[in-house]
């Protein structure tokens, strides 16, 4: 499915808000069609081997310029001398050999400069004199070998310096002195293979974020952490990537954290060599700990040091039971995630009962298995829970009021988890705050007309993939209890038709998805209003469309009929004529074909006798 905004070839630049999109046109200069007043110019994937001060001369109002991958080799002096308002300059992916020392003179306050994958060899090759107001300098994927030259820049407005995937192999205390009086800066060294970081190199720096992920291929983590002693940073990323070699963190190495002030710490893909109760004891004060795929099968029974933790992410590990997270150690937790567990995850009773503050619990994609009837014993104590994700779980039994202990739930995701329910019960009747309910592919029985009783606040309901008995949806009571519903997904439910009164009461409905069913007719008379309704009937069996069924679609309404076997003969003449006049109301027009041919209905050529005897052409 091609993105409709990117056709195969283009002859002209396209107007966008405050500017023009001239990307990908093999242009060798600024086309005349671009007005002098343009503020935003997207000019990537063109060909400008050298930039001179004449190149952009007439575009005196430029605020943002993207010349990504334009084969720029030389940037001569004063290229932007006529662009006082230029704030964003993207030079990504150009094989730069030379940047003149006044290349960036002109703009009063250039804020964002990208030199990603532009072969910059050293920081001193970037003329810094006119970059005093820089907020973001992005140097990812260059050939920088050291931090020499950092001090040439004035960094007073710096927010983000990205040095990912360079060849920097050492950092000294002196290297970092240019940042000593700043606060709130994010620095990323991701993917540099460090060899030596001077102990205390980051001492007394106050950063917003520091990224050392993927930096441990040639240095052990204890040397890195000694270098970080004395730092204060909101976020610290010490994770790895799948292409990195394994790292085994000894608990002793983490003692450096007693001299590191950090709130949010990421250890993704690491191994802990000797995980024990005191491994994290220097992390007192930490708010968020990310241990995604940290090769864990349990957390220690009496962990010290994490008593103030509010977010704990344990995704992609190998727990046998939710209880092995031993969450009694984290009484302040508001967010807990054990998603994508690599083993079937038993959910035993009451093992989260100390998490009275928990607001979000994500146990998705873990074949979560409550074993006993769900879920009041398992969720016991989670009275503040607002979000519960049990999707892609194991088949389970539901008690008659499975969420009785979590009355404040706002979002419940049970997608791809098969549950068994007492006949005709109303499992959600206590969830008066629930706004989102996802029951897709859950074997939900829609003949139970009491199913949604109590969901007074429900706005979004997803029932995709729950086959309808008898293929006709006749339970007119079904949606009566959810008067605020805005989005309803009933795709892939094997529906052939529905009762006219089924949706009539849904006055707020603005999205109805009935795609991938077996409709042969587009029927719209059953909806409260077509003024703002987006109807999705894609991938059904509709051949002809009565134009009356779409004629009332409002300005914000639309219909999607892609991949239906529409016939392009005179029986459909009126509809096709309507489509040609209402292109914006037809979604996925490019995938809406005449059945049996490769022709799009928008391109169909018809010659028909209308009933009134007038011969009409439509082309």
């Amino acid at each position: 499915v091609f993105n409709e905004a990117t056709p195969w070839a283009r002859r002209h630049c396209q107007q966008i808000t405050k500017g023009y999109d001239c990307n990908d046109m093999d242009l060798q200069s600024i086309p005349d069609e671009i007005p002098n007043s343009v503020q935003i110019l997207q000019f990537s994937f063109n060909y400008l081997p050298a930039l001179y001060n004449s190149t952009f001369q007439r575009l005196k109002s430029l605020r943002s310029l993207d010349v990504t991958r334009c084969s720029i080799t030389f940037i001569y002096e004063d290229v932007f001398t006529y662009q006082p308002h230029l704030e964003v300059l993207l030079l990504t992916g150009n094989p730069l050999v030379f940047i003149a020392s006044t290349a960036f003179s002109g703009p009063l306050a250039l804020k964002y400069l990208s030199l990603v994958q532009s072969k910059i060899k050293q920081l001193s090759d970037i003329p810094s004199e006119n970059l005093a107001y820089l907020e973001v300098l992005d140097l990812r994927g260059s050939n920088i070998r050291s931090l020499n030259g950092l001090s040439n820049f004035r960094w007073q407005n710096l927010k983000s310096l990205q040095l990912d995937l360079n060849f920097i192999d050492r950092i000294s205390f002196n290297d970092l002195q240019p940042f000593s009086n700043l606060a709130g800066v994010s620095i990323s060294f991701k993917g540099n293979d460090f060899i030596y970081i001077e102990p205390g190199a980051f001492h007394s720096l106050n950063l917003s974020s520091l990224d050392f992920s993927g930096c441990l291929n040639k240095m052990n983590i204890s040397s890195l952490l000694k270098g970080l002693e004395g730092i204060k940073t909101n976020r610290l990323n010490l994770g790895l990537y799948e292409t990195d070699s394994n790292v085994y963190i000894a608990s002793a190495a983490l003692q450096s954290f007693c001299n590191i002030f950090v709130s949010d710490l990421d250890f993704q893909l690491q191994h802990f060599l000797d995980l024990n109760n005191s491994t994290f004891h220097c992390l007192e004060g930490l708010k968020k700990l990310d241990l995604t795929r940290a090769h864990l099968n349990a957390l220690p029974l009496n962990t010290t040091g994490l008593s103030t933790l509010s977010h704990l992410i344990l995704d992609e590990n190998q727990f046998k039971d939710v209880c092995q997270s031993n969450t009694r150690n984290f009484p302040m937790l508001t967010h807990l995630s054990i998603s994508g567990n690599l083993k079937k995850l038993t959910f035993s009773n009451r093992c989260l009962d100390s998490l009275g503050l928990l607001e979000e619990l994500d146990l998705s994609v873990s074949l979560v298995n409550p074993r006993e009837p769900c879920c009041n014993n398992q969720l016991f104590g989670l009275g503040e829970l607002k979000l519960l994700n049990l999707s892609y779980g194991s088949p389970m039994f539901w008690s008659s009021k499975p969420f009785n202990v979590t009355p404040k739930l706002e979002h419940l995701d049970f997608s791809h988890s098969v549950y068994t329910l007492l006949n005709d019960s109303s499992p959600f009747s206590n969830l008066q705050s629930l706004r989102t309910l996802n029951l897709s592919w859950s074997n939900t029985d829609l003949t139970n007309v009491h199913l949604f009783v109590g969901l007074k606040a429900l706005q979004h309901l997803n029932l995709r993939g729950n086959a309808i008995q008898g293929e006709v949806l006749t339970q007119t009571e079904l949606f009566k209890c959810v008067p605020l519903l805005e989005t309803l997904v009933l795709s892939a439910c094997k529906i052939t038709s529905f009762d006219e009164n089924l949706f009539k009461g849904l006055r707020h409905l603005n999205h109805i998805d009935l795609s991938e069913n077996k409709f042969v007719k587009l029927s719209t008379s059953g909806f409260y209003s077509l003024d703002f309704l987006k109807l999705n009937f894609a991938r059904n069996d509709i051949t002809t469309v009565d134009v009356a069924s779409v004629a009332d679609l409002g300005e914000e309404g639309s219909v999607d009929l892609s991949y239906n076997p529409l016939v392009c003969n005179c029986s459909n003449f009126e509809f096709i004529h309507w489509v040609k006049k209402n292109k914006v109301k037809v979604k996925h027009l490019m995938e809406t074909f005449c059945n049996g041919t490769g022709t799009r209905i928008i391109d169909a050529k018809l010659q028909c006798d209308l009933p009134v005897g007038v011969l009409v052409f439509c082309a």
Partner: protein
Amino acid sequence: QMDRAHSQDPQWPLHTICNSNKLTVTYRSCDPLQDVGVSFLPCPNKLTDPTTVRIAFILRQSITEFYSSIKLFLNGLHVWGVDEPLCLPQFPRFTFCGSRRGEMITFEMLIKSKVDLPLKGDFNLMVHGINQDGFQIACVNATLSFW
């Protein structure tokens, strides 16, 4: 104009990357914006032979999130498939996660089918990657013909 451009439907060249008496592999980029480089290292002789697929392309949009989908069809029947999130907001599995427009990406993946089917006929492999906005980042349509 856009429609006209669409209806011309130009195609990228067909690439032949394996060509033995056991197996022929061809592919074509199904992305409107660019051709794409694909290698099999080595060329497998059976569907169950492990092989590294290398895919190289230039990003047209950022990949804060990046989802790949591989589907294998035998004579039109869907026989194998895998959907893999490669870059998630909370779990960037590879260093290229977070890359932006204009950056080049080389991605390698070891593939190995568990299904050992009688290997005659034309297998169709669809590889597809989208980003956080559903924008298509890369699209490859390959045919594996076993003799």
